[in-house]
């Protein structure tokens, strides 16, 4: 038992050290960490509350006083963008978690059982996948109404298919493995085989899908809020800040009101994608042999050796 525990620890340690030696994961994690921290400490960093109204200084361009300018009510855009990250990231992460949860449950069940259930869920996922995502989201929003929680629920209901397909595929190949055969001959119940024995082996695609979904949902939130159908306007999110660009005058003259929110979305999404790429490298069995670590070591030691 003890030995098993140690082995698990060392696998985890190898995983973490691999991840920390993967350049793209490091870049991504740094971006994400900085953006999350600055979202939490928005007021302290910007020096102004995101809701502080100062109409005299409305619609000022970026400058020393207001790094990213001010909006029509004189609120500091830098502060608003930093704190807008709170809701956007929150929505992305929670929705991605829920979507992954749905996808994992359906994928593992359908993948293990196969047959009719599998065929039905598969068709359903195809259908949801081909529906233009935004339209599906809009239909749900029109039924459920607006609000942060509804947006999260809608994203979860419309975004589970990637995870579902990945998990299902893994289960298809894993259910024929010897250890599953052994489980069956022991007479273990189906849920126990599915969730306790096979599922832990499919964690890597789930983790990768989790990161990618975060990026997709953050962009989707921006689009939905841009249309005025997402999070209520009173809450600043990156998408809601972009709504200002519905006004042609803003697009023309007050570019800082929409360029900076869009750039922060793009930066965060890139960061998440970097982490996703890094995770894929590290978790993919074909890359498991510490390739990243060795390459990194060679680069470091090699250059050091030469300088000596």
């Amino acid at each position, binding site marked *: 038992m003890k030995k098993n525990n140690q082995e698990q620890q060392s696998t985890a340690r190898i995983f973490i050290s691999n991840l920390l030696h993967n350049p793209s994961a490091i870049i991504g994690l740094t971006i994400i960490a900085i953006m999350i921290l600055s979202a939490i400490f928005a007021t302290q960093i910007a020096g102004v509350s995101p809701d502080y109204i100062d109409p005299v200084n409305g619609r000022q361009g970026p400058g020393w006083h207001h790094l990213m300018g001010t909006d029509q009510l004189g609120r500091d855009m830098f502060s608003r963008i930093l704190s807008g990250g709170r809701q956007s990231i929150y929505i992305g992460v929670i929705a991605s978690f829920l979507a992954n949860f749905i996808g994992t449950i359906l994928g593992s069940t359908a993948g293990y059982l196969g047959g009719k259930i599998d065929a039905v869920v598969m068709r359903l996922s195809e*259908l949801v996948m*081909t*529906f*233009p995502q935004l339209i599906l989201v809009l*239909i749900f929003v*029109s039924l459920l109404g607006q609000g942060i929680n509804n947006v999260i629920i809608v994203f979860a209901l419309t975004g589970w298919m990637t995870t579902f397909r990945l998990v299902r595929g893994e289960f298809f190949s894993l259910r024929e493995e010897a250890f599953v055969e052994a489980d069956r001959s022991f007479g273990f119940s189906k849920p126990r085989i599915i969730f306790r024995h096979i599922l832990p082996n499919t964690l890597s695609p789930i983790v990768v899908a989790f990161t990618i979904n975060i*990026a997709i949902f953050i962009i989707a939130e921006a*689009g939905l809020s841009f249309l005025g159908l997402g999070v209520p306007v009173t809450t600043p999110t990156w998408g809601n800040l972009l709504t200002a*660009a519905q006004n042609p005058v803003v697009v023309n003259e007050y570019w800082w009101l929409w360029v900076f929110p869009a750039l922060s979305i*793009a930066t965060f999404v890139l960061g998440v994608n970097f982490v996703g790429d890094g995770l894929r490298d590290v978790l993919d069995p074909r890359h498991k042999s510490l390739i990243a670590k060795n390459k990194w070591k060679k680069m470091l030691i090699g250059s050091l050796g030469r300088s000596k």
Partner: protein
Amino acid sequence: MISFLIRRISILAPMALTISALIFFASRLSPIDPINAMVSPDQAADSANLNQLREELGLNDHIILQYFRWLKNIATGEFGYSLQSGQKISEILALRMPATLELVLSALVLSTILALTLGLFAGAKKGGFADKLSRVLAVIGIAMPDFFIGLALLNVFAYRVAWLPTGNRVAPGQVTFWDRLPNLILPVATLTISMLAVLIRYTRNSVLDTLNRDFVKTARSKGVPEWRVLYSHVFRNSLGPVMVLLAFRLPLLVGGSILVESVFQWPGIGSTIIAAVSASDYPVIMVVSMLIAMVILVASFLVDIIKSILDPRVRLEGGK
């Protein structure tokens, strides 16, 4: 092949029914009284007659019966009225559909041509100019919301240098094609860029896969010129997976341009949907989603056929 086709078609019908049922019952969960959807607003204004109308129209009937009546109406082209404007939905569609088709079809064709060319060169010469360009485009396509590309283009080309109008479709009729073209350029460019990213990467990877196949080596060792190897051996054989992706994109023809239409004030289906959703205009939402669902079913049918032509083994799948 014929039995495969029959099997596929026989799947379509129950799926269409399921979708229509979902749409119908979901819309009945909403608090809006469906009487308004069925009669024109002039009739609905007279509240004394409303209950009688309700009886006549069968709104007091069992909901299952109502569902089948709605289904029959949809099938025969009786889409009902918009709650917002009181217009016939079929008229709205006839007015808005061409605008969206014009926009998305141009973008679809343009992005396909560009993506196939760029993807082929990117795959043929890894690390070359086309490969780098395609990488940049992919990053833009992944990280930027498509409406931001639209806003940026709008700011630069419509306001700063003022070469192009800000969108706003010019309806066909009195004007020539050349009068209408400038208004089309920016929205189509936006949509094209946002569609390009995935397609280029997809083509590139497909080309790379094909390059590793044995028949390419054979062709090269026979001394076939490189451009011929690329064109008639590699390109044709890597088209398969790309065609599947393209068929999956057909539903975009109806509902794929919501954000772009909103940025450029394009009076298409996308704008109709936004207006309908923000006004809880259920009849319109129901009809449009039904329309999209039908296009999707047709598209997935096409995908199955393309797959079965490319890989005959697919035909046997599931036909025990």
